C-alpha cells in the first residue's frame, strides 16, 4: 500500500468520506483458532468480552501483556467453528508467538495470513457499491457482524467493520484472487457512477485519526497501558484475562497520564513533539498529529499528565522549538457512522 496514490492524501481522505475508498490492507495478519478449549483460551488471552460472541458477531479487542500494556489491537470474528483474529502487520510474528506459547492442549492455531487477501471498502456509498457486486448480500449484514458473500464468483468473508469511521466493510478472500476482486470493484464503481478510488496509507492514517481509532505504535504500544490510552471499555473485568491484575492495580493507584486530543493553532503537530504547560514545563508528548481534512483542524493525540487531561485545558505544543497553542478537546473529532443516530 503506497503512502498516497497519484490522487494525493487529502483528496483520498475526502473521497472516502464522500463516496468510496478501496484499501489494499493485505499486510494485516489473520489467525484462525479452533479446537477443544479454544473459547476459553481466547477469552483468557484477549481483553474484550467474548463469552457472548456467537456467529456472525465480531468485536474489537486489545491483546495485553502481564503488565496491562498493549501488545496489539485486534478484531475478532466469531466464525461457526473457529475464531478469526485480525492482527496488525507489524505485530504478526510477535502476536503469533504470544498466542502459540500460551495456547492450551487441544487448541489449534493457524496463521492464515499468506493465503488470505484483505481489502477494505469504506465510505457512505460503500454498501451501495458492495450490494451491486454481491447481489444485495452486504446490506443484510449488520454492523460488527460478518457474512459469506460472493464477488465475481469468488467466496468472500465480509465483515461490516472498518478503520475509517465510515460504513462499509473489510473483505477476506483467497490471495490468488486479489486482482479479480479489486478490479471488479473498481469497474463496478465506474459502471455505476459511484466514485471509487484506491486509498493510500497517509489518508488511512488521517481517516482513523479523525474517527478516534488508535494506531499501534502510537496511541497504544507495549509502553502504554490500556487504561491510560482510554480503553477500559475494551476490557471485560468480569473475566480473567492476561493483564487484568496489572490494570486493577493501575486503576487503584490512579492514572499518572492520559491520552487526550489536542486542537492546535499555527502549525502541524507531529509525533514526538513535546507539550508544555504555561510555566514552560514539559507535561507530555504527541504520539500522532496531522492536518485533518474533514474537520479542518490541526490536531494531535498526546499523553499528558493527568491534571492537564481535561477538555478545555490550554497547553502549548513545541513545533520545531516554537510553542503553539494546543487546547485539549474531546475525541473523536469525527463521530463514526455507527455511533451516529442521525446521518
Amino acid at each position, binding site marked *: 500500500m503506497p503512502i*498516497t496514490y497519484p490522487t*494525493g492524501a*487529502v483528496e483520498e481522505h475526502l473521497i472516502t468520506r464522500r463516496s468510496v475508498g478501496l484499501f489494499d490492507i493485505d499486510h494485516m495478519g489473520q489467525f484462525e483458532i479452533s479446537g477443544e478449549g479454544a473459547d476459553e483460551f481466547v477469552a483468557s488471552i484477549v481483553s474484550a468480552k467474548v463469552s457472548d460472541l456467537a456467529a456472525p458477531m465480531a468485536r474489537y479487542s486489545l491483546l495485553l501483556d502481564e503488565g496491562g500494556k498493549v501488545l496489539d489491537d485486534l478484531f475478532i470474528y466469531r466464525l461457526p467453528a473457529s475464531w478469526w483474529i485480525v492482527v496488525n502487520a507489524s505485530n504478526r510474528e510477535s502476536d503469533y508467538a504470544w498466542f502459540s506459547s500460551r495456547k492450551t492442549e487441544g487448541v489449534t492455531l493457524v496463521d492464515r495470513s499468506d493465503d488470505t487477501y484483505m481489502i477494505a471498502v469504506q465510505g457512505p456509498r460503500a454498501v451501495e457499491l458492495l450490494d451491486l457486486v454481491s447481489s444485495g448480500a452486504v446490506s443484510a449484514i449488520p454492523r460488527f457482524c460478518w457474512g459469506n458473500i460472493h464477488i465475481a464468483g469468488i467466496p468472500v468473508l465480509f465483515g461490516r467493520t472498518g478503520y475509517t469511521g465510515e460504513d462499509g466493510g473489510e473483505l477476506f478472500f483467497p490471495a490468488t484472487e486479489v486482482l479479480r476482486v479489486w478490479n471488479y470493484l473498481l469497474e463496478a464503481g465506474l459502471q455505476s457512477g459511484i466514485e471509487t478510488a484506491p486509498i493510500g496509507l*497517509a489518508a488511512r492514517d488521517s481517516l482513523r485519526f479523525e474517527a478516534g481509532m488508535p494506531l499501534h505504535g502510537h496511541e497504544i504500544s507495549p509502553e502504554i497501558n490500556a487504561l491510560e490510552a482510554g480503553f477500559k471499555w475494551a476490557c471485560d473485568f468480569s473475566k480473567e484475562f492476561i493483564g487484568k491484575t496489572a490494570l486493577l492495580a493501575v486503576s487503584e493507584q490512579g492514572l499518572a497520564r492520559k491520552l487526550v486530543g489536542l486542537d492546535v493553532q*499555527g*502549525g*502541524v503537530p*507531529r509525533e514526538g513533539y513535546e507539550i508544555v504547560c504555561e510555566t514552560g514545563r514539559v507535561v507530555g508528548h504527541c504520539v500522532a498529529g*496531522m*492536518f485533518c481534512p474533514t474537520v479542518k483542524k490541526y490536531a494531535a493525540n498526546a499523553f499528558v499528565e493527568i491534571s492537564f487531561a481535561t477538555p478545555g485545558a490550554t497547553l502549548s505544543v513545541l513545533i520545531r522549538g516554537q510553542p503553539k497553542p494546543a487546547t485539549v478537546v474531546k475525541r473523536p473529532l469525527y463521530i463514526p457512522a455507527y455511533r451516529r443516530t442521525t446521518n
Partner: protein
Amino acid sequence: MSIDQKARYAASHEYARAEGSVVVVGISDHAQAELGDIVFVELPTVGKKIAKGQTFGTVESVKAASDLYMPVGGIVAEINESLQADPALVNREPYSSGWMIKVTPSDLSELDLLLDAAAYGKSIGEV
C-alpha cells in the same frame, strides 16, 4: 512541470519575480509536486527584514515540514493571507494565487545570482 518564464529560481526551488517595486516570492511547481499536499504555510510578519538565504517561513505537507529561503533579501511588504485558509493554493497555482510573500528588495542585483527559467528547468531535469 510548469516553469514561470518571468521568474528566477533559487537552487532550493523558491522563485522570485520582479513586479514593479516588489519581488513576488513562492515555490516552483516542481517543489509543490515534490512536497505533496500542502497543509500549512508559516509566513513571516510584514515589515520583517530578512537577508538572502535566510529562512522566511515553513511549508508543511502531509509528510514533512520544509524551510523556505529568501531568494533575494529585503523587507517583507506583504504576505498571502489566503494561504491560511487554503494552503493548497500553493499546490494548485504556485506562481499565481499561491504566491507566498512580496519583498521590497534591498539589492535588486541579487536577482541576477538566481537561475533563469531555462537554467532552472535544466537543473530539475526538464528537457
